[in-house]
C-alpha cells in the first residue's frame, strides 16, 4: 500500500498510463527558501528536479517541476500541491505548467508527430465515451480530494473546453486564459454543475481528447490505494485499453509495418510531375491517416497520350492502401495497350474484379487521356466523383460525370468515353470526394459550388498554385477540425498567351479580422514583383481590398466564422480583385462624402467611400446560392511600359 507522496504518484501514473497512454506531471511551488510543509527536503532533492533556468521563478515564488518519465502522448494528469490553498494561484500554476509543457513540445518538433496519438485515436470508437471517462475521472478525483479543485479539459469540435472552474474563480481564470492562451471572447457559458465552460485553444497535439487536472489544495495528500483502484475502474470503463503489456510488442510491430506501408504508398505514385510540352501539371495526395485509399497516377497510352488518373479505394487505412498498389500495378501495365480510356477501365475492371470481389470492396477511378499536341482529352470514369473541366472561353466549369460503374461491382462493366477539346486557358481537374465533402465544424460541406468558386478564383494561376490554393481552402473550410477523408487531386492547365506578363494570386482566408493584414500583404507583395509600377497603385488597391474584406467579415459574416476567397490579377493594363463570401448579402451605399460636417463627422461609413475613390471600377453582386461577389478594378496608368 503506497503511503508516501511519490509512491502514490507513481501508482497513479501506472494506472493512468495503462489506460490512457498519457503523461503525468507532479507540480508544486514553495515560497523562496521555504519548503511546502509535509514534504521532506530529502524527497524534493531526490525526486524533484529544480529548473530555475526555465523561468520557474514567477511572482516571487520558486517552482519545482517533476516530470515522471512517461511516453509522450496526449493525456496528462497534472497534480499540483500547494500551500496554503489560494485557488487563483492554483489556476495560475496550472496555466504556467501547461504552457511550459506545450512550448517544450513545440520545440521538440518531430517528437510531437511521433507521439502515439494516432494509435490512440484509432483505438477510440466513440469520442463521447472518452469524454465520459474523463468526466468520471474528474468526479472521482474531486470526491477523493475533498476541497480541492479539479479541472477537466475536454475536446469539442476541436476546441478545448475547460469545465468545472468554479464560478468564484472565474474572473481570475479568465485572466490567466487571456494572458496564456487564445480563447474566444464572450464565449464563456455556465456549466450545469455550477462552473463555467471556457473554450480555449491550447496547442494540444492532434487527436487529444482532453485532460484531467487535479489541483490539491493541501500537500498532505489524502489519497490512498482505495481511490487509485477506483480510478482504475473508472478509466477501464471510460477508455479502451490502448496498450496492455502483452500488446506492446505487437503494437510496435504494427506501427513499424504501417510506416513501411506509408512509404511504399507514397513511393508508388509519381513524386515529380513530368514536363509535358505545352501543359502545366500538378498533383497532390494528403491521406487523412498514415496510409489511405486515394491515389493519383500517370502513365502513357498506346498512342502516346498522357494517362491521368485519380481514384479511391473504398475503405480507409492499411487495407485500402494495399489495394491502391494493386490498382497502380494494373494501370501501369495496361495503359500502353490502350488508346481509349473506356477500354482501359474495362480491362482494369476485368483484371481486378475477382480480387475486389473477394475483398468485398470496390474502386472508383476517373481517367483522362490527354493529347497535348491536338489539345484533346478523352475521359471515362468508373463511378468516380465528377471530374471538372474549366473552359476558358466560356468562363464556366463543366462537370464530367461517371461513365460507368465502379471497378469491382460487375465483372463485365463497360465504360463510355467522352472526347473534349482542351484549349488555351482550360483547366482539367481530377479529384477525390475529400474535397467536395470536406466538412466545416458545423457539418457544412464545401460542395460542388465551393469547388466551382475556387476554380473561378484559381484557374488563371499556374497548376501548382491552384493545387496549393485548393488545399488551403480545405484547411480554411475545416477551421481546425481534423481532416476526415483522404484527398487526392491532379490538375492540368493549358497555358495561354495572355499568361505572359500576367501575375495571378489566388487567395483563401478565414473570415477573421486578422486576415486583413494578409490581404494587405498579398497586394503589396504583388507590387514588389512589379517594381516598374508606382507603389501607390498597390497601396491604394491594398486599402480598397482591405475595406472590402473588412466588409465581408463584419457585414456578410457578422463576426461568424466563414471563408473568403478570390484572386488578384495584375496584367499590363489593370489590377483586379475578385472576392467571394458566403455570408449575408449587403447593400453597398457610398455616403455623400462632400457633405461631411467638420463639426460632427460620422464615426463610421468611410469604407465604401474609400473603395469608391481608390478604384476605377467596383461592383458588388449577390449571387444565387447565398454567395456574394465583389469585383474591383484599378487601371494601371498608361505611361508605364512593362
Amino acid at each position, binding site marked *: 500500500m503506497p503511503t508516501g507522496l511519490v509512491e502514490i504518484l507513481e501508482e497513479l501514473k501506472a494506472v493512468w498510463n495503462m489506460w490512457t497512454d498519457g503523461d503525468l506531471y507532479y507540480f508544486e511551488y514553495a515560497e523562496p527558501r521555504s519548503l511546502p510543509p509535509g514534504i521532506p527536503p530529502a524527497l524534493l532533492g531526490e525526486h524533484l528536479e529544480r529548473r530555475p533556468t526555465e523561468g520557474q521563478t514567477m511572482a516571487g515564488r520558486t517552482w519545482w517541476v517533476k516530470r515522471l518519465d512517461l511516453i509522450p502522448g496526449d493525456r496528462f494528469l497534472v497534480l499540483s500541491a500547494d500551500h496554503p490553498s489560494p485557488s487563483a494561484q492554483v489556476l495560475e500554476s496550472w496555466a504556467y505548467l501547461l504552457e511550459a509543457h506545450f512550448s517544450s513540445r513545440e520545440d521538440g518538433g518531430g517528437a510531437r508527430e511521433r507521439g502515439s496519438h494516432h494509435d490512440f485515436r484509432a483505438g477510440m470508437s466513440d469520442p463521447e465515451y472518452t469524454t465520459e471517462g474523463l468526466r468520471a475521472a474528474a468526479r472521482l478525483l474531486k470526491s477523493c480530494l475533498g476541497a480541492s479543485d479539479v479541472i477537466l479539459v475536454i475536446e469539442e469540435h476541436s476546441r478545448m473546453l475547460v469545465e468545472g472552474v468554479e464560478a468564484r474563480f472565474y474572473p481570475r481564470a479568465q485572466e490567466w486564459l487571456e494572458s496564456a492562451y487564445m480563447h474566444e471572447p464572450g464565449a464563456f457559458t455556465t456549466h450545469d454543475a455550477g462552473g463555467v465552460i471556457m473554450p480555449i485553444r491550447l496547442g494540444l497535439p492532434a487527436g487529444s481528447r482532453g485532460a484531467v487536472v487535479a489541483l490539491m489544495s493541501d500537500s498532505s495528500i489524502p489519497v490512498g490505494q482505495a481511490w487509485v483502484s477506483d480510478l482504475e475502474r473508472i478509466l477501464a470503463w471510460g477508455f479502451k485499453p490502448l496498450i496492455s503489456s502483452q500488446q506492446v510488442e505487437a503494437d510496435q510491430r504494427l506501427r513499424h509495418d504501417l510506416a513501411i506501408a506509408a512509404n511504399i504508398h507514397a513511393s508508388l505514385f509519381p513524386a515529380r510531375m513530368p514536363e509535358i510540352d505545352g501543359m502545366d501539371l500538378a498533383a497532390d495526395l494528403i491521406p487523412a491517416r498514415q496510409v489511405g485509399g486515394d491515389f493519383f497516377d500517370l502513365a502513357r497510352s498506346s498512342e502516346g497520350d498522357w494517362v491521368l488518373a485519380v481514384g479511391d479505394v473504398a475503405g480507409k487505412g492499411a487495407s485500402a492502401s494495399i489495394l491502391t498498389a494493386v490498382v497502380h500495378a494494373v494501370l501501369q501495365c495496361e495503359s500502353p495497350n490502350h488508346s481509349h480510356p473506356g477500354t482501359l477501365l474495362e480491362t482494369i475492371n476485368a483484371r481486378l474484379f475477382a480480387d475486389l470481389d473477394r475483398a468485398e470492396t470496390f474502386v472508383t477511378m476517373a481517367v483522362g487521356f490527354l493529347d497535348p499536341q491536338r489539345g484533346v482529352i478523352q475521359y471515362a470514369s468508373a463511378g468516380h466523383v465528377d471530374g471538372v473541366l474549366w473552359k476558358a472561353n466560356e468562363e464556366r466549369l463543366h462537370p464530367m460525370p461517371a461513365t460507368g460503374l465502379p471497378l469491382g461491382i460487375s465483372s463485365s462493366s463497360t465504360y463510355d468515353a467522352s472526347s473534349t477539346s482542351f484549349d488555351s486557358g482550360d483547366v482539367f481537374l481530377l479529384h477525390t470526394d475529400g474535397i467536395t465533402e470536406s466538412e466545416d465544424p458545423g457539418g457544412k460541406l464545401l460542395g460542388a459550388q465551393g469547388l466551382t468558386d475556387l476554380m473561378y478564383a484559381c484557374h488563371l494561376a499556374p497548376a501548382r498554385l491552384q493545387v496549393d490554393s485548393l488545399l488551403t481552402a480545405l484547411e480554411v473550410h475545416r477551421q481546425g477540425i481534423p481532416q476526415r477523408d483522404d484527398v487526392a487531386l491532379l490538375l492540368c492547365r493549358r497555358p495561354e498567351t495572355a499568361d505572359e506578363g500576367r501575375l495571378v494570386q489566388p487567395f483563401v482566408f478565414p473570415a477573421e479580422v486578422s486576415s486583413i493584414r494578409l490581404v494587405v500583404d498579398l497586394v503589396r507583395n504583388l507590387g514588389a514583383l512589379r517594381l516598374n509600377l508606382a507603389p501607390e497603385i498597390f497601396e491604394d488597391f491594398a486599402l480598397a481590398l482591405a475595406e472590402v474584406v473588412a466588409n465581408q467579415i463584419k457585414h456578410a459574416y457578422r463576426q461568424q466564422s466563414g471563408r473568403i476567397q478570390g484572386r488578384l490579377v495584375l496584367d499590363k493594363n489593370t489590377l483586379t480583385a475578385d472576392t467571394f463570401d458566403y455570408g449575408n448579402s449587403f447593400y453597398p451605399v457610398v455616403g455623400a462624402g462632400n457633405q*461631411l460636417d467638420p463639426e460632427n463627422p460620422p464615426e463610421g461609413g468611410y469604407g465604401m467611400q474609400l473603395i469608391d475613390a481608390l478604384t476605377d471600377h467596383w461592383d458588388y453582386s449577390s449571387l444565387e446560392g447565398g454567395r456574394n461577389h465583389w469585383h474591383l478594378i484599378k487601371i494601371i496608368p498608361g505611361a508605364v511600359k512593362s
Partner: protein
Amino acid sequence: MKIEVKHLDEGKAVVTVSGRVDAETAPELKTRLKDLAQYRILQAFIDIAEVDFIDSSGLSAMVSGLKALRKHGGALILCGPQPQALKALRLTLLDRVFPIYPTLEEAVEQASHHAR
C-alpha cells in the same frame, strides 16, 4: 500596432502609434483615445509617423477619440502621416476635421505658439 501614451504638462498628451491600424487593431486605438477624455486632455497629439497602413476603422477610431475629447473642449491633432494615411484622410475629407502637421515637433510648437 503599438500605442504609447505620454502625458505632458498643461493638459497635453502625445499618443505614438506605430504599425498597422486596421479592423483588427483599431478597437484598441479607439479605447486608448477615448481614455484620454477621462484625463480631460485638451490637446492630444497623435503621432502616426510610424503607421504604414490605416483603414476606415482606424479613421473611425480617431473620429471617436476626437468626439470624446470635444465634449470638454479638447482637440485631436494628427502628426506625421505617411502618404497612405494622408491619402485616406483626404479621400474621406477628414483632413478638414483634424488639424494635420508634418511632424510632431511642428505640431507641438505651433500649439504652444497659439497658447501664448
